[in-house]
């Protein structure tokens, strides 16, 4: 693949890392929120659902701006993160944060649906066998929702690979640090004659995304087969 220059390769590698970290870090809270939305009734249920979906609906630049206000060097959370040695401003970690937040609704939706498909009778059966709530979740609900979780994670990964607006607004475009594939594509589209390079990177994104989607369908089916019908 020597048709990609070193800077482009760097962007691809960085995007892969950012997307992977975004998905890995958002999976636990994603599963928790999906579980809460699927199984609990509480005041603010609708509000939580709305909040989770917000990044899907807000213009990404607005999301990025809000992230900047909250997680930037001057932001309330950003200061704390900096103090504990996990700075996100203008770092690839920030790009991962932006990607995670933008991909969160897709992940939560997929996981929520698969949790709703798990027979609560199985969870009650596990409780009668002595498993506490947490154990029921870990030994029954979680393994049974694996197809949905995998599908959600891969979809989120693809989305994270493509995130642009919130990322560039929040962490800018720093080669090697926050210059992901979409930022590079945007930059190429800004200059006359940059289309060719942009097309190459679009092809890479599309390839990765397509592979992720096909893999996700396949994995979900394979897991569903393995888990089988009781």
């Amino acid at each position, binding site marked *: 693949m020597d048709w990609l220059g070193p800077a482009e390769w760097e962007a691809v590698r960085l995007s892969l890392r950012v997307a992977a970290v975004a998905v890995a870090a958002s999976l636990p809270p994603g599963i928790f929120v999906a579980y809460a939305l699927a199984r609990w009734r509480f005041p603010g249920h609708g509000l939580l659902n709305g909040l989770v979906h917000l990044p899907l609906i807000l213009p990404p630049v607005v999301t990025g701006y809000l992230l*900047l206000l909250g997680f930037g060097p001057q932001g309330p959370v950003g200061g704390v993160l900096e103090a504990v040695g996990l700075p996100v401003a*203008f770092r690839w970690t920030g790009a991962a944060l932006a990607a995670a937040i933008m991909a969160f609704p897709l992940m939560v939706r997929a996981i929520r649906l698969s949790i709703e498909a798990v027979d609560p009778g199985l969870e009650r059966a596990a409780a009668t066998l002595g498993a506490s709530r947490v154990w029921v979740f870990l030994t029954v609900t979680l393994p049974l929702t694996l197809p949905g979780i995998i599908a959600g994670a891969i979809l989120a990964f693809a989305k994270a690979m493509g995130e642009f607006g919130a990322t560039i607004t929040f962490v800018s475009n720093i080669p090697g640090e926050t210059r992901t594939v979409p930022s590079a594509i945007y930059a*190429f589209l*800004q200059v006359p004659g940059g289309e060719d390079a942009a097309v190459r990177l679009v092809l890479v994104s599309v390839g990765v995304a397509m592979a992720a989607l096909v893999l996700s369908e396949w994995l979900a089916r394979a897991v569903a087969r393995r888990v089988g019908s009781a």
Partner: protein
Amino acid sequence: EDVTVFAAASMTEALGEIAARFTDETGTGVVLSFAGSSALARQIAQGAPADVFISANADWMDVLQADGRIVEGSRFDLTLNRIVLIAHDAAMAEVDITPSLDLGAMLEGGRLAMALTEAVPAGIYGRAALDHLGLWDAVAGQVAEADNVRAALMLVATGAAPLGIVYYSDAVSTPDVRMLGVFPEDSHPPITYPAARIVGSGDAAQSFLDYLQRSPAVDIIAEHGFWAPGG
């Protein structure tokens, strides 16, 4: 009929006022569409129904001209701009922008906010100026590039970055940043805002272009921090 003007986003406010005056005086409506110059140029190349194009840099106008999209002889430089160094800290002292400026020290480990230095005009000019002054290598690793010049301005305004390089017109638009100094005129290619009529536009487009070069329009543009050509 109305005149449709595609203009660089940085001209939003000035052109809004001029268009209102123009409509009052002539009765001809003006439809303004603002976006990044590159997006607008591509749309015009694809046949967008624009009558007038005002670009924030000459390159995109050159592309359209080579493409035969603009009316021969209608192109002129509407205004000029300058790039400036701005700071978030209102107490910071003004500086002379010379090769001896120690930008690295001024940043104190923070980021220098600019527009994309390879793609967005404000970033390209800023990079050229820093190169010319021999300052680029010292700060290259600390530059945070935003997708447009307004986003760079915002990074400084919110304090995410202590310093930034933006247009003079941007710097005067908000009280949240302090202008530390203007880059020497010879440190970068001239920053021109070419305007032109698009092929297929009517007489109204020409009268709007003419109007832009006359008294109230010129003053309004200057009020918003743009520099008059040759001024």
